């Protein structure tokens, strides 16, 4: 979420789920909200019933399209062009919010200049969306206030994902849609506690609450609290860790609750990297495909077997409560790590409960300073919550942004094509998506019934492409990319546009990410799992 941090000073959802139903306009880009975030999907549909305008921009004809006033079926990887094109229309037609721009933003002139590249015919050419629809979308978004932008993996999983997010924040800033109720720029987080993991500094460059490891003041504070000298050099990202393991620079890996054999872009490379490790510990609730490669596997307690907190996509810290005793000898993750730290003779890991740990978190994290387990008994609290008498913050940036100047920064952008381009041998674009019934690999596969509802994995191909390639619905096909190949059944559907095919990445039987590219976004270092050139033939 590096993008939003640059322009607004925070990378979380700016507004609250409950506000979505009161928006006058919602633009859902790169999210199949009804499938990936069903409860937010209900809110969007409620808003539509109350008369809100809905714009859906997506390479796939997702179910939400049925409720949309306007559907922009963009080519994968063309989001920046679309959003900047819309911004240009808004500025040219004078639909921008001049007063807001003057009072609350900076860099408007430079931004405006960068719009010159995005003429309607250029944007239409890149996105595949007719010019009049781009104009209509721009007007719809600018003229119906408050307008909320919702986005998800579809936007961040590109080699230029950071630009996509900047383009969204530009659009919201020029129309005055930040800091208002039911507006905002709203990243919908995938997994239950992505927000909490980020907040806690499970990231290579920050401690808790986004305090930078490079910042001397922050580091000294943590050195004081933890009573030990800390490494000032930012660490490696997820993908870089596997690259480093591949090069033997990282030799020991401790992996918790993930299954990169399935989820890592360019999975065959990651698998080789894991095999090169000298010592590999996996802590999980199942012996998944990745755990099978470990030297030591530790049984973790599931969410229902421990106390703690999760933070949802709207920054709401909520209590997780133990329902049953852990199965067998499984233990909460924090207990296991603390036991190892204690065995290694480290100080500061004598925790007796999750509550002990949370007290320490509040003490070192300003945005959590006012949150306590006692308060959470009465319901969740949205951070920032700097003091015990502070009610929490449903809407961010109501008065100023968390940037050095306090203003929202407009960012000039230019269009960069996706790294993995189609050619004669790989004529189609593969995009990955999520199914309602499946959830990022393992958990749902062990829940009876969900597999049955999802009907297994298919590659979704447009009827025109299928006919040209002589493929019928249900045929087994071989899908090849520059990095790997796999076999899967074909589903012929107009959900995919011509030239684009879609797979989800949930099934061990069909590891989609063997195919996808690990070209990195230069800033956020997000692997490009959303755009990948492929060929399809009958198996």
């Amino acid at each position: 979420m590096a993008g939003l941090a640059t322009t607004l000073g925070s990378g979380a959802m700016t507004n609250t789920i409950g506000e979505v139903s009161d928006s006058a306009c919602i633009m859902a880009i790169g999210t199949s909200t009804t499938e990936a975030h069903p409860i937010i999907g209900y809110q969007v549909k409620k808003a539509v019933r109350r008369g809100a305008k809905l714009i859906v921009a997506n390479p796939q004809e997702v179910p939400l399209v049925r409720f949309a006033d306007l559907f922009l079926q963009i080519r994968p990887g063309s989001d920046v062009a679309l959003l900047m094109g819309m911004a240009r229309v808004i500025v040219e037609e004078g639909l921008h919010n001049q007063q807001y721009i003057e009072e609350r933003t900076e860099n408007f002139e430079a931004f405006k200049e960068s719009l010159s590249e995005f003429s309607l015919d250029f944007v239409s050419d890149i996105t595949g969306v007719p010019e009049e629809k781009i104009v209509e979308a721009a007007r719809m978004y600018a003229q119906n206030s408050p307008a909320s932008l919702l986005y998800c993996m579809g936007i961040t999983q590109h080699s230029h994902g950071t630009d996509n997010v900047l383009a969204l924040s530009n659009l919201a800033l020029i129309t005055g849609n930040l800091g208002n109720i039911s507006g905002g720029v709203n990243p919908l987080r995938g997994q239950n506690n992505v927000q909490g993991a980020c907040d806690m500094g499970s990231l290579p460059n920050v401690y808790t609450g986004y305090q930078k490891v490079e910042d001397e003041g922050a580091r000294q504070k943590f050195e004081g609290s933890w009573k030990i000298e800390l490494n000032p050099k930012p660490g490696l990202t997820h993908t870089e860790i596997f690259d480093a393991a591949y090069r033997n620079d990282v030799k020991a890996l401790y992996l918790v609750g993930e299954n990169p054999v399935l989820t890592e872009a360019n999975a065959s490379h990651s698998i080789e990297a894991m095999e090169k490790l000298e010592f590999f510990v996996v802590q999980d609730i199942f012996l998944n495909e990745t755990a099978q490669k470990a030297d030591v596997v530790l049984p973790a307690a599931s969410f229902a077997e421990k106390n703690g907190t999760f933070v949802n996509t709207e920054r709401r810290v909520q209590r997780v409560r133990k329902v049953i005793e852990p199965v067998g000898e499984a233990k909460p993750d924090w207990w296991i790590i603390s036991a190892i730290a204690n065995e290694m003779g480290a100080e500061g890991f004598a925790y007796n409960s999750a509550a002990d740990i949370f007290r320490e978190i509040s003490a070192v994290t300003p945005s959590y300073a006012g949150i306590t387990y006692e308060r959470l008994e009465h319901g969740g609290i949205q951070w920032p919550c700097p003091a015990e008498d502070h009610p929490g913050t449903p809407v961010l940036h109501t008065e100023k942004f968390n940037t050095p100047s306090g203003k929202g920064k407009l960012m000039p952008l230019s269009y960069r094509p996706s790294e993995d381009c189609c050619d004669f041998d790989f004529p189609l674009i593969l995009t990955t998506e999520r199914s309602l019934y499946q959830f990022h690999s393992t958990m749902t596969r062990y829940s009876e019934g969900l597999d049955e509802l999802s009907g297994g994995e298919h590659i979704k191909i447009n009827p025109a492409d299928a006919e040209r390639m002589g493929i019928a619905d249900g045929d087994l096909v071989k899908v090849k990319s520059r990095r790997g190949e796999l076999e899967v059944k074909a589903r012929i559907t107009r959900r995919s546009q011509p030239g684009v095919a879609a797979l989800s990445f949930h099934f061990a039987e069909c590891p989609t990410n063997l195919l996808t590219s690990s070209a990195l976004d230069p800033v956020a270092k997000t692997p490009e799992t959303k755009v990948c050139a492929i060929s399809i033939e009958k198996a």
Partner: protein
Amino acid sequence: MSELITLTIDGVEIKAEKGTSILRAALENGIYIPHLCDHQDLTSVGICRVCLVEIEGRRPTVSCMTPVEEGMVVTTSSEELDMTRKVNMELLILHHDYDCQNCAKNSYCKLQELTRYVGIDEERISAMRAPALDFPIDDSNPYYQRDMNKCVLCGICVRTCEEIQGDECIDFAFRGIETRISVLGDKPIIDSTCVTCGECVSRCPVGALVPQKAIEPTYEVETVCPFCGCGCNILVGARGGKLVSSTAVEDSPVSGGSLCVKGRYGLSFVNSPERLTTPLIRRDGELVEASWEEAISLISEKLGQYKGDQFATIASAKCTVEDNYVLQKFTRAVMGTNNIDHCARL
């Protein structure tokens, strides 16, 4: 806060917000008016006609469709009202497949509650009793069952699907005694656009829509759904060390009392026999069971040799805030590196 209106129900003076129906105003003030087709989350339609009341100076009327007015005087029970209500109820029950002992809704059923209140005359019913309905049970969905022989045609499921889920999978179909709730083309529910959110199942007042294999929990605990970033609040029921149910927390600020298929029906992974239950250590190429003592001493001895940037941690967005805090503190303070990330990017 909108305008408050004062009215009298059964001699009790109450206040209610303008626009509220008499039925909801009464219920909010602890006055019971029998009702079947009304639901607090949905628009009122007045089709069951069980909530009849008398308003001074007017003919008996359905209280769910009548907004409160200043100075209104309402009576909820009189000989005439009770009689009409009884007749309305009898019509509902006439063809009902009355088999409470074998019904999943037994003792939570709205119809049972109503028959008790109204005092249905068993003899009269059996004298006029028509044959029970005999529609096939639709158990095509892995999580819930549809038994239209128990349906009272309140339409709550239809409105739920439309107003909450925002879909229109089901609707009233056919006429007369054949009237039932059906999927377009009278197909099994699994072949419809139903996304198995279970919202209609949780609102059906009778045994017509019930979860498959419902097991009664011995206790429930409020926690948070472990699947997506919405973070819906759920009440998880357990029995004998297993999770057996999950329902929405009614006044949740996140979900407003709704859930999706995963939060409602997807928690059985916790009970899976394939869960890891002991530490495993690789010996001669095989992962074999080990004790915690062995595992922890092996790990701490090994990790002691890899301090610094040759070590890395992949944390998890599925684990709690506390788990993540301890993990990054361990990586930074004990292992001396900032090589920690999780898959937020995915």
